[in-house]
C-alpha cells in the first residue's frame, strides 16, 4: 500500500515529521517498506537568475550565461534554446549530484570557456520527461532552495511517498483514512472530519438491479447504483493525476480515476459502467459454468459454476467485486455512466479471484473486507466527485439487497491486557485507545467499528490496546523454570540416536550434507520411489518433483556435482527423513553414508587405495555399535536393486528386521546418476534398532581372567560360495565356554585349490577359566572345531 504524505494530511491534522510518522507506522504494525522522498535528492539545488546570455564564441548552439546564485555571479555554459537573460532557473553548483543524468557537476571547460555549474531541466531532476529546455520558474528568489520553492508552489513534486506492508487482517489500512486513524490513536495528530455528500436524484434510476435469491447468501450483500447523465469524461485534474502517479497508478480518465481514488482513499472499490453499453437491467447471479467474459484488462476469462457475476440482457458484463468487463467499460466518449457500490461476501471473492487468477485492487480489498456501513455514503461521495469533475446529473439511487449488519461487541477486560501482554496500562487509557480507533464503549462492552472485520473477540481488543500503546514499551519478565532444580534431559531416545549417528559419522570422517527432500522422477524411481503418491502437485522444477524414497540418490547427485568440480574422493553422509508414501505417517528416519573414489590422495606410504565395501562395512558397524544395536546380527543379501546384487549385505535381526545395508552401489545406478565409481555406501534405519532394555546405568562386572589365553590357527578349504560368517559361527559353537573369539585372518581363492574352492584361515582364541589348558585339552577343542566347521560348511582342514 502506497500513499503520499500530503494525501495522509487530507485526513490527519499533524505536525509530526516524516521520520516520526514512519517510525510510528512500523511500530503500529503497518511496517514501512520504503519511503521515497523527492526532496531528499533535490535538496542541494538552488534558484538563480540569468543576468546575461551571450553566444559562445566557438559554438552556435551554446550560450555563455552569467547567473546570479547564492554564491555570487557564476559563469555557466548552456545549450538549452530557452536560456536567456532575465529568467529564473534551477542551479546545480559544482559538486551537486544530478539524479536524472546520474552525474556530479564539476568545473570544466566547454569549447574552451569555463563553466561553473549547470541549469537543470525537469528531466534532469526526474520531475517529468520534459527536456525541451531548462526550467523557467515563474517566481523564486536567488539562493532559495528549489525544494522550498516546490513545497510552496508545486507541493506534489516533493510529496514523500510511503509504502507500507499490510498484514491480511487490516483491510482498513488499505485506505489512507484508515492509516490516519491509527496514527491519530497513537497521538500523532487529530483526524479531520470525514467528507460527506448528498446528491439529490432527479428521478428513478432507469437501470434497475436485482440479486438472484441464491446469490444473496454468500454472494452479494447489497448493490447500490445510480445513473449519472451527461458527463464529459476526459483527463482528471492534475492533483488527482499526481496522486495516482505518485503511488504507481496510471491515470486513465476522470471517471476511472475517481473509482481508483476511493479505492485508495477509503478502501472503497467502485465500478463505473458506460450506461449506453448496458442493455436492459442488471442482474447479479451465479454462473452456470463455461460462460466467458473479456475483462477490463483485455484478457478472456471462463467461469466455473457458482461464481458471482453481473449480467445485462447481453450476458455477463462484470465479475462482481473483482473486475469489470471491457464491453461496458467507460471510455473518453462515455456520456452516461452507471456507478456501482456493492458489498460482496469475502470468501466468495477470494475463491473466484484465485480460480480466475485475477489480482486486482478491487479483489484485494473485497476479499479482505471493506466497510459495509460506508456503502451508501460511498455512492454519494463518488457521485459528487464525478459531477464536480465531469458535470452531469444524477438519478435516484437504486438498491438491491441490504447493507449487512456487522455490529458486535466484546467485553473489555482491562486485567487481560496485563495478564496476556504483561504491560500495565490504566483502564482509562485502554478505553481511550479503543474509542480513538472508532470503538464505541458501553459499560465494559466495546462495539467494533464496521471497518474492522478482523476484530472477532476479546483477545483482539487486547491486541489493539497493546499495539497502540507500543510493544517497544514492553519490558521482559523472567519465565520461571517449569521445575525447580537441575533441568532434566529433554531429548527422546530417537532424537539422541540422530545426534549420535550424526556425530559418529562425522568422527568417522564423513561430511554431513543437508539435501533437498525432493528429487527428480528418474532418481526417485531408481530407488524404489517416484510413484504418484509421493509426487508434488506444483514442483518448482522437474528436478524437484518427488519426495525422496531414500537419502542415497541425494548423496549420489551431490557426489556427481563434486566430481564435476574436480573433487573426486568423497565421504558424504546425511541424517534425515525419507518418504515411503504421501501420508503424514509415511516418513522414516534414515542415516546414509557414501564413499566415492579413493581412501585419500596418493601418498608416499602407499596407503591410498580405492574405497571398497569393507570400508562401508567398518563404518556401518561403528554406527550400529554407537546406536546400541546388538552385536550379534545376521548378514543377508536381500537388499533392493540399487545395490550391487552380489556385493552388498543387509545387517538383520531375523529375515524381516533390517537394521542397515552396506555395499557397492549398482553400477547401472551410478551411470544413470553420472557418478564415476568406485562408490560404496551404507544405510541405517535407527528406528529399527531395538530400544535398550535396561535403564540402569551400572554395567555388568568386568571378569578378568588371570590364566593365559591360547590362540590356535586353522585353515579350511571350502566351496567358494561358503560365507565366512557361517564358518566362524560354526567354529565358535565348538565350545561356547572356552572359545572367546574366532577371527578370520586370511582368505585365499583358486590357485592350487582349484576352481570353485577357497581357503579361509581363522584364529580361535581359547580362554580357560579354571585351570591352565594342557595340550590335550587344546587338541580336543581343535578337533571339535574341525568337526563343527565340516558339518556346517563341508570344509576340510587344509593340509
Amino acid at each position, binding site marked *: 500500500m502506497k500513499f503520499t504524505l500530503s494525501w495522509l494530511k487530507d485526513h490527519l491534522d499533524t505536525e509530526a515529521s516524516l521520520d516520526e510518522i514512519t517510525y510510528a507506522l512500523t511500530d503500529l504494525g503497518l511496517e514501512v517498506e520504503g519511503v521515497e522522498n523527492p526532496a531528499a535528492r533535490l535538496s542541494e539545488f538552488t534558484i538563480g537568475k540569468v543576468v546575461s546570455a551571450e553566444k559562445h564564441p566557438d559554438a552556435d548552439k551554446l550560450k555563455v550565461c552569467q547567473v546570479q546564485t547564492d554564491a555570487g555571479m557564476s559563469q555557466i555554459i548552456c545549450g538549452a534554446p530557452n536560456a536567456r537573460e532575465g529568467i529564473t532557473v534551477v542551479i546545480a553548483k559544482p559538486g551537486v549530484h544530478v539524479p536524472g543524468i546520474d552525474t556530479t557537476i564539476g568545473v570544466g571547460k566547454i569549447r574552451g570557456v569555463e563553466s561553473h555549474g549547470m541549469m537543470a531541466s525537469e528531466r534532469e531532476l526526474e520531475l517529468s520527461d520534459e527536456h525541451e529546455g531548462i526550467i523557467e520558474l515563474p517566481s523564486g528568489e536567488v539562493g532559495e532552495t528549489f525544494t522550498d520553492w516546490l513545497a510552496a508552489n508545486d507541493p506534489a513534486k516533493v510529496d514523500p511517498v510511503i509504502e507500507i506492508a499490510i498484514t491480511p487482517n487490516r483491510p482498513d489500512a488499505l485506505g489512507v483514512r484508515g492509516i490516519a486513524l491509527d496514527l491519530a490513536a497513537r497521538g500523532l495528530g487529530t483526524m479531520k472530519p470525514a467528507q460527506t455528500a448528498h446528491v439529490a436524484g432527479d428521478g428513478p434510476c432507469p437501470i434497475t438491479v436485482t440479486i438472484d435469491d441464491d446469490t444473496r447468501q454468500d454472494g452479494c450483500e447489497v448493490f447500490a447504483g445510480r445513473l449519472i447523465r451527461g458527463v464529459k469524461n476526459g483527463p482528471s485534474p492534475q492533483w488527482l493525476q499526481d496522486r495516482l502517479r505518485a503511488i504507481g497508478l496510471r491515470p486513465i480518465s476522470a471517471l476511472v480515476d475517481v473509482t481508483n481514488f476511493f479505492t485508495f482513499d477509503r478502501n472503497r472499490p467502485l465500478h463505473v459502467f458506460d450506461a449506453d453499453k448496458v442493455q436492459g437491467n442488471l442482474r447479479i447471479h451465479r454462473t452456470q459454468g463455461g460462460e466467458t467474459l473479456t475483462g477490463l484488462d483485455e484478457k478472456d476469462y471462463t467461469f466455473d459454476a457458482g461464481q458471482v457475476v453481473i449480467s445485462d440482457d447481453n450476458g455477463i458484463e462484470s465479475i462482481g467485486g473483482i473486475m469489470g468487463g471491457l464491453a461496458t467499460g467507460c471510455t473518453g466518449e462515455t456520456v452516461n455512466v452507471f456507478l456501482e457500490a456493492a458489498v460482496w461476501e469475502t470468501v466468495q471473492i477470494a475463491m473466484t479471484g484465485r480460480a480466475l487468477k485475477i489480482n486486482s485492487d478491487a479483489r484485494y480489498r473485497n476479499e479482505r473486507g471493506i466497510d459495509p456501513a460506508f456503502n451508501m455514503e460511498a455512492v454519494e461521495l463518488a457521485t459528487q466527485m464525478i459531477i464536480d469533475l465531469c458535470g452531469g446529473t444524477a438519478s435516484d439511487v437504486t438498491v438491491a439487497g441490504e447493507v449487512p449488519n456487522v455490529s458486535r461487541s466484546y467485553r473489555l477486560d482491562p486485567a487481560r491486557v496485563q495478564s496476556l*501482554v*504483561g504491560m500495565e496500562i490504566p483502564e482509562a487509557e485502554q478505553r481511550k485507545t479503543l474509542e480513538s480507533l472508532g470503538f464505541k464503549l458501553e459499560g465494559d462492552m466495546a462495539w467494533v467499528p464496521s471497518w474492522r472485520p478482523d476484530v472477532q473477540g476479546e483477545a483482539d481488543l487486547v491486541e489493539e490496546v497493546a499495539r497502540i500503546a507500543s510493544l517497544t514499551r514492553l519490558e521482559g519478565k523472567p519465565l520461571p523454570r*517449569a521445575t525447580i532444580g537441575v533441568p532434566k534431559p529433554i531429548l527422546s531416545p530417537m532424537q539422541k540416536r540422530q545426534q549420535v549417528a550424526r556425530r559418529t559419522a562425522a568422527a568417522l570422517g564423513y561430511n*554431513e550434507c543437508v539435501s533437498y527432500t525432493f528429487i527428480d522422477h528418474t532418481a526417485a524411481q531408481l530407488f524404489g520411489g517416484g510413484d504418484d503418491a509421493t509426487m*508434488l502437485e506444483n514442483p518448482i522444477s522437474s528436478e524437484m518433483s518427488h519426495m525422496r524414497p531414500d537419502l542415497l540418490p541425494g548423496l549420489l547427485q551431490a557426489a556427481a556435482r563434486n566430481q564435476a*568440480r574436480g573433487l573426486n574422493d568423497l565421504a558424504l553422509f546425511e541424517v534425515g527423513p525419507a518418504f515411503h508414501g504421501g501420508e503424514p505417517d509415511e516418513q522414516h528416519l534414515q542415516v546414509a553414508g557414501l564413499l566415492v573414489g579413493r581412501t585419500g590422495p596418493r601418498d608416499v606410504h602407499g596407503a591410498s587405495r580405492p574405497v571398497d565395501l569393507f570400508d562401508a562395512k567398518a563404518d556401518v558397524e561403528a554406527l550400529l555399535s554407537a546406536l546400541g544395536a546388538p552385536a550379534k546380527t545376521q548378514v543377508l543379501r536381500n537388499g533392493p536393486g540399487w545395490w550391487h546384487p552380489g556385493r552388498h549385505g543387509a545387517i538383520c535381526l531375523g529375515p524381516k528386521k533390517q537394521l542397515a545395508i552396506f555395499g557397492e552401489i549398482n553400477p547401472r545406478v551410478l551411470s544413470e546418476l553420472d557418478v564415476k565409481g568406485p562408490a560404496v555406501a551404507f544405510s541405517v534405519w535407527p528406528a529399527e534398532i531395538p530400544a535398550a532394555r535396561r535403564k540402569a546405568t551400572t554395567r555388568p562386572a568386568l571378569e578378568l581372567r588371570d590364566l593365559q589365553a591360547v590362540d590356535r590357527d586353522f585353515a579350511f578349504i571350502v566351496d567358494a560360495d561358503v560365507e565366512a560368517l557361517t564358518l566362524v559361527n560354526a567354529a565358535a559353537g565348538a565350545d561356547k565356554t572356552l572359545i572367546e573369539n574366532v577371527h578370520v585372518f586370511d582368505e585365499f581363492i583358486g590357485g592350487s585349490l582349484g576352481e570353485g574352492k577357497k581357503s579361509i584361515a581363522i584364529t580361535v582364541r581359547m580362554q580357560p577359566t579354571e585351570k591352565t589348558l594342557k595340550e590335550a585339552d587344546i587338541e580336543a577343542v581343535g578337533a571339535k572345531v574341525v568337526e563343527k566347521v565340516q558339518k556346517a560348511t563341508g570344509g576340510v582342514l587344509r593340509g
Partner: protein
Amino acid sequence: MDQLRDKYITAIANAADEAALEDLRVQAVGKKGEISLKMRELGRMTPEERQTAGPALNALKDEINSAIAAKRAALADAALDERLRGEWLDVTLPARHKRRGTVHPVSQVTEEVTAIFADMGFAVAEGPRIDTDWYNFDALNIPSHHPARAEMDTFYMHRAEGDDRPPHVLRTHTSPVQIRTMEAEGAPLRVICPGGVYRADYDQTHTPMFHQVEGLAIDRDISMANLKWVLEEFFAAFFEIDGIKTRFRASHFPFTEPSAEVDIQCSWVDGQLRIGEGDDWMEVLGSGMVHPKVLRAGGIDPDEWQGFAFGIGIDRLAMLKYGIPDLRAFFDSDLRWLRHYGFAALDVPTLHGGLSR
C-alpha cells in the same frame, strides 16, 4: 689389593666393546678369575687376617661387578646413540591421510538452540514434513479462503483421482508440530519444534526448503513479557553477546494475538553485518500470544491456559552467527563448503562448555 683394583677399574673403563668387557669379567670375577682365586685363599688365612681380607675382597668384587655393569650400560647407550645417529627420516613428508568429517551448520545450530531452550525447560518436538492442510492451516486459524494461504507459496502433494480429501501439503512452517504436540501432551507445555519446512520460492535469498525452529510455552499465566525475556535470553546465549537489544513491533499472524515481529540490534560496517551493536535493526523473528482458536484446535481450553509461540529460521541464525553468505549453498553439498562451514564431530554445543569454540 689396591693395585689389583686399579688394574681392573682402569681396564674396564678402557674396554672398547662388550666382548672385551666380558673377557675382563672372566679374568677378574669369573670362576677362575684373579679375585675368585684370592677369595679361595681366605680359608688358609688366620681368622684375624680373614677379618680384614674377607670384606675387602668382597667389596672389591662388588665394585668390579658394578663397574662392569655401568660400563656395559654405557657401551649399550653409545651403541644406541650410534644407531640413532644413522636413523633419520624426513619428518616433513605428509602423514598417512585421515579424513576429517564435519557436521552441517543446520545440525549444529539446531543443537545450539536445543541446548539453550533445554535449560529453560523446553523439550524438542518433531512431526511429519508432509502434513494435512488441517494441521498446516485450519488448526492455525488459517481457513481455506484466508489470504495468508495464497501468500505462503505452499507446495501441494498430488491427489489421486477419486480421493476427495484436500491435498496434503509440505508443511510451510513447523507450527503443525505445535498442534500435534498440544493434542498429545496438553498443558502445561514447553517445546521447541525444529525442522525442515517448504515454500515454493527460489531466488537469491529463498530456497524451496529451509529450516525453522518454533517455540511454544503454555501455562496459566505466561505473558508476552515472558516471551520477550525468553527471546532476549536466547539471543544473548546464542550470539554469545551479553545484553543484546531486541525490539518488538506489532504485527499480525493468524495464529497469534497479539503478534509481534522482533528485531535485533545490529550494524553494518564495511558491508559486514555485526549483531548486537549499533543503531540498526534486523528483523529475525515472528511471535505472539497463541490465538485462542489455535489452543482450542490443539485441545487446550483457552479460558484456562495461555502462552506464547515464536518462529525463527535456523539457516538464517546460522548465516547471521557464522557469517555464511548464501542460503542456497546450504543445500548444494559442495565439499569445499561443507569443510569450510562445517563443525568438528566433537564440537558438541553445551551451555557449560560454550556453544561455539
